């Protein structure tokens, strides 16, 4: 009796072992096949985008469009194509207006991403937002606004970043009412995006952030003020020196030091007589 049981047990272990081996082999095979397919798509996209760059109205061959559409129908196929397009943009510099929008619209990638934006799953929405701003699909920007204060950290981070990517310094106006915490990493990412945008004439949105009740938004504004040397925010920042929040007061001190360094008169080392003379006489303070 015991012997039979033992034989059954061995048989069972063997079956399980064989199943594991088969599934492993199948997984390797599927992965290899997928990676080959992705590589093919990458080359197809790279070749077609590269050859159309000189055309103001690119026209892609139907065969290529069909291959991409077929890929898009697969589960997570949109991710593969979007990733390839994002990667291609890292290889060549494309102005905002010349992002590969023609191919995105043609194969329906934008509507696929838009469907994900309407999903109930936070992960999918965050991913759709990320692809939207990385591929420059500006028409999706309107949908980001509702997620800037979302309880899901990844979703609100992507939504906030997306707004800064599309609206530059105007992105601040969507953050004045947030209550959820903001990490230093997110602040750095926002500042990196802002570096690509010109400084606006009016900094009213940053000023509003400084008056916020939420400490993290004040911290973001202070980091930006220090990094971009926004000396015109002097009156709004100096009261932060007395803040009970240690991070805020430290950043305000940094701002004060930066301000002092900028306003301190420069000492002319070596004393170029001509420069000193010109400066002095123009002020009318020295008569020679």
């Amino acid at each position, binding site marked *: 009796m015991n012997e039979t049981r033992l034989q059954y047990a061995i048989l069972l272990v063997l079956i399980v072992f064989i199943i594991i081996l088969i599934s492993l082999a199948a997984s390797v095979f599927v992965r290899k096949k997928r990676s080959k397919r992705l590589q093919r798509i990458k080359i197809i996209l*790279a*070749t077609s985008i590269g050859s*159309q760059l000189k055309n103001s109205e690119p026209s892609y061959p139907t065969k290529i469009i069909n291959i991409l559409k077929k890929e898009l129908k697969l589960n997570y196929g949109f991710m593969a194509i979007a990733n390839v397009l994002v990667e291609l943009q890292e290889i060549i510099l494309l102005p905002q207006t010349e992002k590969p929008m023609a191919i995105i619209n043609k194969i329906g990638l934008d509507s696929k991403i838009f469907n994900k934006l309407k999903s109930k799953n936070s992960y999918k929405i965050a991913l759709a937002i990320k692809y939207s701003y990385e591929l420059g699909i500006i028409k999706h920007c309107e949908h980001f606004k509702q997620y800037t204060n979302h309880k899901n950290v990844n979703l609100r981070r992507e939504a906030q970043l997306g707004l800064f990517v599309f609206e530059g310094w105007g992105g601040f106006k969507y953050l004045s009412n947030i209550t959820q915490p903001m990490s230093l990493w997110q602040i750095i990412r926002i500042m990196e995006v802002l570096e690509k945008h010109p400084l606006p004439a009016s900094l009213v949105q940053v000023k509003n952030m400084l008056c916020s009740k939420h400490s993290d938004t004040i911290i973001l504004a202070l980091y930006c003020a220090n990094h971009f040397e926004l000396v015109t925010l002097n009156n709004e920042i100096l009261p932060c020196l007395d803040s009970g929040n240690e991070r805020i007061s430290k950043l305000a001190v940094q701002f004060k030091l930066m301000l002092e360094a900028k306003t301190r008169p420069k000492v002319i080392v070596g004393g170029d007589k001509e420069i000193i003379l010109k400066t002095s006489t123009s002020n009318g303070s020295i008569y020679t």
Partner: protein
Amino acid sequence: MVVKKEVLIINENHSVTALLKSYLVSKKCNVTISHTNTEFLLAINSNRYSSIITDILLVGTSGLELINTIKNNSTKSKVFVLSHMDQQVQKEMISELGAISFLTFPIDLGYLNSVIE
């Protein structure tokens, strides 16, 4: 008859080579691609390229060795070095070795076109 420019692209990344090749072909250039050190050594011996666009790192050789080999074998070629890093020290070192220009990712194709011309 218009003489097409001969360009050699040395890079392991197939997307980079495909993109650059299709762009340069549309600009009426003859493009040869090398993905490996062996392919590169075979291609460089012909000494017929007016421009060579090379990655700074290729498996089997260092960036410095690569540029030295190019300069020794293909004396007439203009050498453009591609890199993800935008460091002044690296740029200076590569320029000393005889590279004409330093292209960082993402590549400005307008600039690339003007320097190849």
